[in-house]
């Protein structure tokens, strides 16, 4: 007998009668308690998973206000109280049974799951690894009931008074599985993870108020009346929240709404990229890829955009029963979804301000002027209490409330808000009032409308009068109202050429200049074969290639807009691109990519001296081209510095 089997039969000795004959039956059904304990390993990993499961239950029960009380990062005690539907005695009796759920009744239900949970595993798993109790009273009942389970041992159901809704308490998590308990991290880490879960669900469910307290201190809260932008502000700070650009689109039953942040907020990781599918937080590769594709050309590769997006679709169009934590899903009509998302996101991305530091330039001037004037009119909130004031005080409350030594994540959060507040402070004293007024406005997007109009008006007035300063034959400097901008001449020219070529292409008028003598480029046989399949597609962008002997390529014509073309470099770029794309490059994508490369190869290089007329004409063309904030490789074309940035640099404030 192998030693492993020895071990196995040891552990299962209670279930298997030790027989005399060696090849006795070694496979047996596990008892329920053990089964649930094993399942708990999958579903319940740490306090944060308990918080997630219980919060989702509360949300599924239609709660409007949920409070989460934690002790020692949730390891000692997690108590979640909601004001939802509640459960009667019959439901409570079954609550801790495995695969007992109110959310599914028959097989067909699996095809259109609209609740967050549905497996019926969570409570049973918790019951087997912790001391749990549930108090619940349905709204219509006059008396509540209580059920307790300690490490899988069920106590009898009994009557108990209590408020409407359900309170679930999970204490001493993993008290009977010491191995698992040892894997828990420090209190601050576990608390951070719990908060992460709560914050995500808070962003996923505007309309539901949540309060988290830890060891009796309040550490996070959102009011039920706060919309998505206000929730982002509360969670990630005012600077990000103020810069968010709304996204909104609808295609039949598909609806996408939420916010994206300008490129300067992009991060290395996707932790600020939140997708909510019908209120469920998702970490789906398709959606992440979609967001990145939408930003392609406006954000450097390797940087991850920040976004908070709600996607609503009929439950039957998506299969959520793929992953135990339900963070991955499968879409039924992926192509249609993808193109819808892409379209909607790109629209919004064009609205974002890509100039790197600072805010939208004219926002500042606009706010300074309008804040004082509008503050008075905006303050009286139709809801009764002036929300701006309440919000401000809750922000203040959060910072000292956090135990700095114990809660590094929270204090970081606090300082972020603090710095954000400082940043806004420099704009003017009336600013924060205007900000919170913008938050309370329905739709949450109205705040920047005026200043956008103002920016547009200024753009129209701007006659590029100069003076200009060319720095090191690479950068152009020019003054703006309330600041100045630095332009990367190569990047801007590249973008302008690219946009003009793209416009020509769309109008079917891409002109191609034929060459007197073809330029020969030696590419080798393999690459020539690769290219040959795409001669026609390349011809459509004005690049006419022909085979010229073995392994040599003749460039017969080039796009007429391109001057100073480095044919060889261009051809090599294209080969590289085709090789990287594999066998099936989408024609349109290929063209776009070739345009990128071609524009780049033929642009004003850094190092070219430009006179004032040339600069002016470049800027004018950039304005006509529209999309001019980044070069086609997503490097910024211009960086703006505001008066405020200068003030800060000179310690004037």
């Amino acid at each position, binding site marked *: 007998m192998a030693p492993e089997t020895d071990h196995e039969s040891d552990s299962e000795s209670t279930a298997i009668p030790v027989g005399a004959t060696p090849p006795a039956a070694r496979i047996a059904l596990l008892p329920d308690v053990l089964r649930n304990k094993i399942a708990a390993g999958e579903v319940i990993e740490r306090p944060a998973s308990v918080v997630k499961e219980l919060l989702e239950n509360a949300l599924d029960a239609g709660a409007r206000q949920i409070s989460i009380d934690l002790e020692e990062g949730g390891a000692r005690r997690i108590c979640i109280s909601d004001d939802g539907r509640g459960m009667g005695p019959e439901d409570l009796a079954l609550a801790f049974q495995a695969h007992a759920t109110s959310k599914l009744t028959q097989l067909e239900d699996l095809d259109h799951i609209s609740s967050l949970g549905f497996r019926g595993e969570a409570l049973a798993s918790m019951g087997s690894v912790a001391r749990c109790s549930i108090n619940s009273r349905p709204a219509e009942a006059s008396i509540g009931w209580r059920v307790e389970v300690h490490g899988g041992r069920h106590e009898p159901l009994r009557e108990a008074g209590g408020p409407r809704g359900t309170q679930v308490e999970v204490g001493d998590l993993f008290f009977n599985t010491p191995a698992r308990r040892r894997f828990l991290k420090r209190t601050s880490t576990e608390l951070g993870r719990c908060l992460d879960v709560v914050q995500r669900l808070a962003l996923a469910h505007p309309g539901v108020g949540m309060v988290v307290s830890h060891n009796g201190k309040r550490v996070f809260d959102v009011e039920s009346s706060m919309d998505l932008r206000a929730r982002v502000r509360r969670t990630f700070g005012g600077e990000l929240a103020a810069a968010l650009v709304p996204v909104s689109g609808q295609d039949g039953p598909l609806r996408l709404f939420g916010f994206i942040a300008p490129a300067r907020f992009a991060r290395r990781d996707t932790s600020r990229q939140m997708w909510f599918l019908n209120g469920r937080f998702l970490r789906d590769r398709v959606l992440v890829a979609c967001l990145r594709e939408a930003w392609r050309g406006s954000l450097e590769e390797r940087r991850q955009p920040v976004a908070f997006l709600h996607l609503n679709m009929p439950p039957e169009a998506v299969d959520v029963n793929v992953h135990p934590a339900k963070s991955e899903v499968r879409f039924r009509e992926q192509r249609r979804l993808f193109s819808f998302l892409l379209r909607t996101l790109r629209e919004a991305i064009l609205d974002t301000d890509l100039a790197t530091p600072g805010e939208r330039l004219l926002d500042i001037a606009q706010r300074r002027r309008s804040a004082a004037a509008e503050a008075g009119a905006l303050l009286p909130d139709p809801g009764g209490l002036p929300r701006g004031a309440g919000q401000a005080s809750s922000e203040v409350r959060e910072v000292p409330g956090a135990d700095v030594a114990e809660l590094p994540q929270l204090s970081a959060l606090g300082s972020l808000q603090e710095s954000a507040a400082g940043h806004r402070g420099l704009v003017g004293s009336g600013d924060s009032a205007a900000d919170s007024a913008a938050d309370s406005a329905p739709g949450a997007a109205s705040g920047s409308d005026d200043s956008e109009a103002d920016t547009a008006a200024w753009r129209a007035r701007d006659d590029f009068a100069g003076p200009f300063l060319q720095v090191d034959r690479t950068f152009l400097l020019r003054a703006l109202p309330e600041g100045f901008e630095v332009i990367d001449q190569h990047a801007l020219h590249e973008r302008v050429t690219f946009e003009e070529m793209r*416009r*020509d292409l769309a109008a079917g008028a891409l*002109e*191609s200049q034929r*060459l*007197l*003598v073809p*330029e020969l480029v030696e590419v080798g046989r393999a690459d020539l074969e690769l290219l040959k399949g795409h001669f026609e597609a390349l011809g*459509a962008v004005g690049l*006419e290639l022909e085979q010229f002997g073995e392994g040599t390529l003749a460039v017969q014509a080039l796009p007429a807009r391109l001057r100073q073309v480095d044919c060889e470099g261009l051809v090599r770029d294209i080969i590289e691109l085709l090789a990287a794309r594999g066998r099936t490059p989408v024609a349109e994508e290929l063209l776009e990519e070739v345009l990128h490369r071609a524009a780049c190869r033929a642009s004003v290089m850094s190092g070219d001296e430009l006179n004032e007329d040339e600069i002016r004409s470049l800027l004018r063309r950039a304005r006509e081209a529209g999309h001019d904030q980044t070069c086609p490789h997503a490097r910024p074309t211009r960086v703006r510095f505001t008066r405020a940035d200068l003030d800060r640099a000179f310690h004037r404030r």
Partner: protein
Amino acid sequence: MKVLCNREKLREGLAITNGVIPTRSTKAVLENVCLVATDDTLELVGTDLEVSVRYRIDDVKVEEPGPAVIPSRVALDFVRDLSGETVTLETKDGNCFITSGADSCELVTVDPDEYPVVPRFDAEKQLPLQGGILTRLVNQTSFAAAREPGRYAMHGILLAIEDDCLRMVGTDGRRLALSSTPVDAGKGEWAPVIVPAKGMQLFCRVISDPLDTIHLDLGEHQIGMQTQNAEIFARLIDGEFPRYAAVVPTDCEQSLEADTELLNKKLRLVANVTGEDARAVKFKLKKKELELFGQSIGRGEATAHMEVAFTGKAAEVAFNPDYVLDGLKNCEGDTVRLEFKDRTSPGKFTLGENFVYVVMPITVDA
């Protein structure tokens, strides 16, 4: 060194050498002009290592022969602004004094040994040519030479002597200008050479009288030219020049003749509307009429009509108007002839006797 010379002649000489001398160079000594006084002549030497020039001023009074290397630009400016008729150049204690009447300046000199050696014109076989003809050929071809970085050979002008004919060709890969003149090449064999366009233009500047005979020498590494009182050399470009003979079309079906002035005017008119970067003007040919049509997305379109003499079928071809205008500017005659085969083949403009200009068309939806 001490020399007395005519101010105007000195100014002229300095102006010519200054055309070659770089204003800013990594080798500071090149920013100077080298003056050498020998019996009754003063020689001015300038070089940027690509192009070198020697200019000789006769009828000077040399009191003390010797060299002096002085800053070129300052010397030129000072001599130009002097008012006297004669100028004295004198070196003393490492400085050079330029004096005219009561006015004088003192310039720092550089050790003459530091100045690079510039060759002398002493070719065995020379090609005699009228100066004005060389100037004409250069002007008719240099405008088509490439200015943008790219194939280096196209930054030069090709000079080829074949069949008792001197040909010059300038091209940037999209258009090509070919101009030629009969010469007496003698018996010698001349390999074609590529000369930097800038060098070629400096050659022309040295030619003071178009009727004077000049002499050309096509060497292996440099081209030299000798005029009455100047010698100039340019380093050749080593590279492969497009085979110009193959480029000039021979099988043109459409042919039109137009008034140069009018075509120039109408083309400019239409080109006002076409874009800044991508510009194409369509030449639409019908019986006896040429329609010019230009269009720019986001700007508008323009049309112009003119009468032309036309043989062939109705046809259409589009060119970059800048290219065509460049050619028309250099056109010798009152009429210009355009021949082409179809919309994707080169257009051949005949701009004068022995002067052909080929422009590649622009095609939309290839």
